[in-house]
């Protein structure tokens, strides 16, 4: 049991949040509602893919680096934060390129 991975994920999310706040890109933009609902839908779909992956015995998480809290069968809490980070950083980038 270890919070290191979770810590870095949250740390990165906060960093992105600061950038987002300064440049008004995603959560601080006018169309934040549609962006957030799109991110939530994507995260949900990929959590399902993760569950299938765990179910098919394709991947698993190393207990040495995760908190050991599972939100879905075989899917640790960190995966939710990972997908959130992935969705957030991609949306921020997409907005930055405009």
């Amino acid at each position: 049991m270890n919070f290191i991975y979770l810590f870095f994920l949250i740390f990165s999310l906060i960093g992105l949040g600061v950038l987002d706040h300064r440049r008004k890109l995603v959560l601080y933009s006018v169309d934040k509602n549609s962006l957030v609902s799109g991110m939530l839908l994507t995260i949900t779909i990929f959590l399902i893919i993760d569950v299938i992956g765990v179910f098919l015995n394709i991947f698993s998480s190393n207990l040495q680096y995760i908190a050991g809290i599972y939100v879905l069968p075989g899917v640790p809490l960190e995966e939710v934060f990972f997908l959130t980070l992935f969705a957030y950083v991609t949306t921020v980038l997409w907005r930055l390129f405009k």
Partner: protein
Amino acid sequence: MTSYLLLTLIPLLAIIMFDLKMGGQFLLRKKFYLLLVVVTGMMLIFDTLLTSLPIVMYNPTQILGIRVGSIPIEDFLYGYAFVIFLLNAAVFKKILGRHYKSILKSSRPFSWVNTAFPAAVGILITRGYFRYEDIALIGFFLLPYNLILYGVNDIYDYATDKFNPRKNSIEGGLLSPDLHPLMWWSVGLAILCSILIIVGQSAYFILLFIATLLIAIFYSALPLRTKQIPILDSVTSSLHFVLPAVVGIAWVGGIVMPLIGLISFFFWGIASHMVGALPDIDADTKAGERTVATFFGKNVTAILAVVSYIICIGLLFFISLPLWIILPLCVYPINAAWSLRDHVSLLRKRFRFFMMYNLLYGFLITIYLIDHYLF
């Protein structure tokens, strides 16, 4: 070996197809490729950490084994599918939110159990108990299979269905032409789902499974369209329910099929298709469609149905089933025989009764199976 590849490639291909056909066509923009390059760069850093420490571990038997540094190549497909999906999520949500009910209605939710149940029974009578992975096959025959069968059917049937009062009820909805592309897309996705089913299965299973899908598709799709060929329409319609059981048996490695039971079920399916075709005689004739009922006429078709039901029941006496399972089946031929006295306009009631009685009889079989296998 290819599990992870399929798990990532299927969503990737699906979302690329969606993006180009119905989504935001992000793949045609320069900006997208700039994003892709940056995301790839970030993945190289982040994923190297994840896979080299490792935080995420991969089962070597399930991946291709081709790695970029420590990153399995499939991870990139996962990432790209994620990015393209994210960009299209808003479009996806809008289309899905507006039309999911029509698509779902086309798959005949009332009949889902009619295909999932035979698959579950096939598994149970062969292995004697269920395993977790059976959910995949039973789940496939619950929704995706029905979406393929009835989705294709509703697209090709649009012309005749306009005259058919039965549609737009529990037996299905009228699918307007502007929804046809979305339906093709959903059917495609359902077929892609089936790839997850056949991974790692025997050639025997895969052959049976593909045959089952082809019979479902070409029941209504051209050039075969077996639903318009009298007698063959009843046969293929029956196979739609018998084959899920056969596939269920093969799923657990059964090679020797319980033939008497399957043939009995097959005759039940033929007769039931005839009962279903009877109320549509007028609509089908008007639309120029040929079915077993328009070919033989109302009374002969009803008699054929009764005979098929009797063959179905008779065969069951050759396998050891309790009488309380066999005798309630007699309601089916009685219901079909009643059609002889009914005016054509009343035949819909016979079919409705048939649908409802199915639920009751299905309940009886369930009780028997639970008692016989699970305790």
